Structures are given as C-alpha cells and as structure tokens.
C-alpha cells in the first residue's frame, strides 16, 4: 500500500477544486473522522462509499461547513476551495455554501412554488438583474436538472406536489441556480425508486465537468456507474481513494476488497 493511495491526494496534473488535509472531526468527545486527506477534481465525479456510520456524511458536511450548525461538532485540519481555507475567519460561510451547493438525502423542496424554489437562491444572492434574467436562470437551471419539460407548464404549482424523484431534481436545480462550483450530494437516491434513481444518475453524468461533484452512496453499483473516483471510508478513516475502475476491479486494500465483494457492510 502506497501512501498516496491512502491519503487520496491527486498525483495527476491539474489543480484540484477542493483539497482536504489531515481533517479530524469530533462530535463532543467522539471522533467521527480521523485524519482524512482528499482532493476533489473538477472533471470527475467523486463517490464516497463505506458502511453506515463510517463518517461519509460527516466529512461531506465539512466541505461546505454545514457541520457548523451542530453545536458539538468540531473540525480540525485544513479544507481549501480553490486554495482558500474555508475554515479561516476570512471565509464567509454563507457565500461558501452558495459556492459549494448541497443536495440532501431526503428531497427537501421549500413549500413554495416550483419557480420560487429555484428563484430563491439567485434572489438572496442578487444574481439576477431583473425579472427576465431571473426567468432565464429558472429555466436554464430546470433545463440542466432535466426537469424543465415536466414542469414548464406548472411553475406556480407547489414544489412539494411533485413526485419524490422530481423533487430531488428540483433540489439539484435549486443548487445549480446559484451557480456553484462544487455540488455535494448525500445519498441523493436513497429515498427514490429505481426509475427516479436512473434519472438522477443520468443527470449526474450530464453535470459532470460543469461542476465538481461529490456523491455519497451506500450503493456500490451506483458508485461504479456514476463516478470516476471513489473513496472508501471505514470507521472514520479514508481507507482507499483512487480511480473507480481500480477500486472496483483491483482494490489495493484488504478492507476495500471485503467491502465491495459484500463480505461485510
């Protein structure tokens, strides 16, 4: 086992979008993440896999400082977005969360119209110059999320009236609307049926390259289908990080092999 495989730093060319170095996370006295270092690239989808409770969500939530909302959570180490330390006092958390968008496990549209769901982010960040500009942002975001065709005639309907899969794509469109650089997805398909899941996976394919995407999943087939890079977490540590094809066909670590062959989990 080489060191670079374990730490997950990129060796290939091209500066990574986000870098994490020696990150530890504690909930009170309990350590949930232990010394994780990882790079996230613009041109690939990164999947986080690992058994339940191994800290995938915890680590993901460090990347846009959503953990700040949990009083007992404490993060040490260094996470950078385009070279800027996101935990430094100069970083504005609110703007960070616009730049690093998040899609949650359970679809959580606002109980407002579809239009307002998308328009909310651009409005609070002042991204639109006028009504027409805002309409344009709403349309293009829904287009990108592959939802425009289904909802263009009912933009004033409540976002909560959509099906689960549509709601999740609405949430992705909502994240896209604020023009983020990175999109974090925490098990975005775990509450969806197979057809809706397939649609989201297709969408992730389309979004690849436009945004740096990190997806947490407990479904290994899904990781294999949508990602180019895979990180395997276990008990709060990053066991292995590499090309998805390598991880699934030729893992370097015993634990990884055991996990992907279903020997435990």
């Amino acid at each position, binding site marked *: 086992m080489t060191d670079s495989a374990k730490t997950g730093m990129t060796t290939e060319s091209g500066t990574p979008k986000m870098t994490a170095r020696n990150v530890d996370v504690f909930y009170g006295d309990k350590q949930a993440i232990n010394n994780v270092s990882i790079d996230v690239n613009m041109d690939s989808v990164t999947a986080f896999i690992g058994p339940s409770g191994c800290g995938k969500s915890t680590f993901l939530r460090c990347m846009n400082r959503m953990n700040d909302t949990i009083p007992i959570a404490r993060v040490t180490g260094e996470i950078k977005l385009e070279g800027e330390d996101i935990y430094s006092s100069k970083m504005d958390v609110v703007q960070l969360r*616009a730049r690093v968008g998040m899609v*949650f496990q359970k679809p*959580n549209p*606002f*109980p407002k119209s579809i239009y307002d769901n998308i328009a*909310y982010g651009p409005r609070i*960040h002042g991204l639109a110059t006028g009504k027409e500009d805002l309409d344009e942002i709403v349309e293009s975001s829904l287009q990108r999320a592959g939802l425009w065709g289904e909802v263009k005639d009912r933009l004033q309907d409540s976002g*909560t009236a959509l099906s689960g899969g549509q709601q999740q794509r609405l949430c992705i469109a909502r994240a896209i609307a604020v023009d983020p650089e990175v999109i974090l997805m925490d098990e975005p398909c775990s509450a969806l049926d197979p057809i809706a899941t397939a649609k989201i996976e297709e969408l992730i394919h389309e979004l690849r390259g436009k945004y740096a995407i990190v997806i947490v999943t407990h479904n290994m087939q899904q990781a294999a289908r949508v990602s180019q890079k895979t990180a395997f977490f276990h008990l709060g540590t990053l066991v292995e990080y590499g090309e998805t094809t390598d991880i699934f066909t030729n893992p370097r670590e015993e634990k990884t092999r055991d996990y992907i062959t279903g020997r435990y989990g």
Partner: protein
Amino acid sequence: MNSLTETKRRPTDWQGAEMQKRIAGRYAAERRFKAMGITAIVLSAGFLAFLLIVMVGNGFRGFTQTELPVEIDFPAVTSGASPSQFEGPNAEANLQVMGLREIVESSIEIQYGREGSDLFSPGAWTSVSAKILASPDIVRQKATVYLPVNSEIDVAYKDAGNPEAEQKVQALRDKFSTGFNWNFLSNSDATDPMQVGIWGAFKGSLITMIVTLLLAFPVGVLAALYLEEYAPKNRLTDLIEVSINNLAAVPSIIFGLLGLAVFLNFFGMPRSGALVGGLTLALMTMPVIVISGRNAVKSVPPSIREAALGIGASPLQVVFHHVLPLALPGILTGTIIGMARALGETAPLLMIGMRAFIATPPSGITDPATVLPVQIFLWSDEVDRGFVEKTSAAIIVLLLFLLIMNALAIYLRNRFETRW
C-alpha cells in the same frame, strides 16, 4: 436446541375457551371506553348548551326595551320651529335652548297624567332629541314617538317587578310595545339601567387589546425565534425557559399588582387607562405567545433549514424567509388563545383602576376606560334589577367578541397553513 424449546411450550390454542374469553373481554373494554367517551361529550355539550340557553334567554331581553307611545304636537309646543334649526353644528344647542326636555315632559303629563313622568326613563327625552337630529322634518308635524319606560316598569313588563310597578303595567297593558334597544350598543355606562350601553366598555376592550397585541406579539415572537434559533443551549437558557413556563402559570391578579407597582407607581402612567391595562395584559399574554411560538418554530422540519442554509441563506434569512412563515399559523393560534384569555381577564384590571364609572367612551390609550369583563362585573354588582338583563346582554357581547376572535384564528391558520 430449537426442538427442545418447542416441546417445552404448549401449542397455542387460538380457538379455545380461554381465548374466546380474552376476545370478549377486549370487546367489553372497548365498549366501556366508548360509552365513557360519549358520556363525557354529552355532559360537556349539555353544560355548554345550558350556559348558552340561559345567557341568550336572559341577555336577549337586554337588547330590547319597553316603550310607551307619546304624542308630541311639535308645531304647537315649539311655537313653529323650522327644521333647518336642527341641522348643522348648532343643532344640539338649539334643542337645549328650545327646552326639549320640558316639552317632552309636558307632553307626557298631558297623556299619562301628573305622575306620567314616573313611567318613563329619566333620559327618555334624549330619544326624542336623537329622532329630531336624525330627521329634522319631524318638527313640522304632530308625531307619535315611542319612548323607553323606566327600569321598574321595564322589569315589571318583561318579568315580575314590584307590586306598584306591576299595577301600573296592568293599567297600561295594551299600550306597551317593545323595540330594539339601540342605545345599548351606542351608549356607555350610566346610573339608569335603561340608558346604559356597552359601547364604552367595548371600545375600551378593543383599545386595550390593540395595545396588548402590539406589545406582546412582536416581543413574544422575537423571543420565541431567538430562543429556538439563536440562543445557545445552556444553563441560562434552560433557566429562562423554566421562568417563562412559570410566568404563564402565574395567577392573573399578580400581574395586576405588578402593573400597579411598576406602571402606575413607578412610571406614573395615567390611571385607569387602556395603556396600562394593555401593558399589564401584555405581560400576561407574552409567555403564552413565547411558549406556543417556540412549539411552532420547533415543529418546522429541520430539513427546510438545511435546504436554505445549503444554498447560502444567512441564518437571519433562514429564520425570516422560511422558519417564521411556516411557524406563523401555529404562532397565530397561540397568540389568539392568549389574547382571548386577556380579553376575558378582570382581576388584574381591577388592580390598576379600570373599574371606574366610565360614562364617555375612551378616545385614546390614556383616557380612563373600562373593559367588557369589568363592566359585566360592575353591573352584576348593581342593586337595580334592570341591570340583571344588561349584565347578560353584555356577556353575550363579550362571547361574540371571543367567537369572532376565534373564527379569525381559524381563518388565519387555514389561510397560512402550508400543506406538505
């Protein structure tokens, strides 16, 4: 090992007598519960119906007044006054100059004899004055006006009065008529039960409630939002939470003492005014709003907060764009419950002097005022039997006020409620 445990256990006999008995017992328990539930509901509905029937039955008569016709030959008694005298700003002064009161009294004596005036309410002539002001043309003709009788006669006619009054009523039996007592809605407190009205107390209640709402609602909602969304969870906030819960349970008269000590004695605010009443009731209502507000805020799903934070909404935006609108129906319901309690409150207002005799409705927050429940309390204490039905009528007005407030609460809740 498995077979061992199985052999030890007797197979369950689902059809056996013991099982049948269990089933029968379960059904019986369910029937008993249902019967008790129905009894409880019938009982409380019965009490409510009794209350309403008694109140409406008594109170209804408070809205009517017994009248006797009086014929007034205006052209003769006013020596040819012209209707134009009773229009415009000098109208009332001209009525006074003309001596309307004496005119009415002499007309009464002509028709009902020397003691005729004893039949009528001392303020009966004011009804004539109101009629002239409403339509001055009446002074050109000989007109019959219906004037309210005095309270003894009124009681004797509607119900059983004292023997003397009963005799008079007997004598005039078929002359009486009953009219709607508009004065009851437009007048304020008076010494003569035939002249009392609810308007002053109603207006006092309204102004007091507005003061209470303007103070208790924003402060209560902000406190609830701050405690739920911003305040760190520590010993201090725990203490604050316990204090607020205790405050909500403090007997209302103690808030009255507090209002007396703080607002009147310390700050020297005007006594008996709606301002002090409103402030005192706001102290009482605030904890209720804070508690219901916190519960409403707590019930907003955390996923909505995460969604907003996740696209870069600031904590303030999360609270005011998402949490507050979603919590508003619950907050409003709690607020109206608190306000309804404040509206029905008597004791604390007695402490700060809102029990004065208020014959002119308050026109501002510092004018001496009274409120509906205090007015009811004051009238119920009167000796004159004419006040009995007025008290019931005032209760009906108070209940209607409450009913409207509750209807408003339900309307607002449905209007703002978000369906998920």
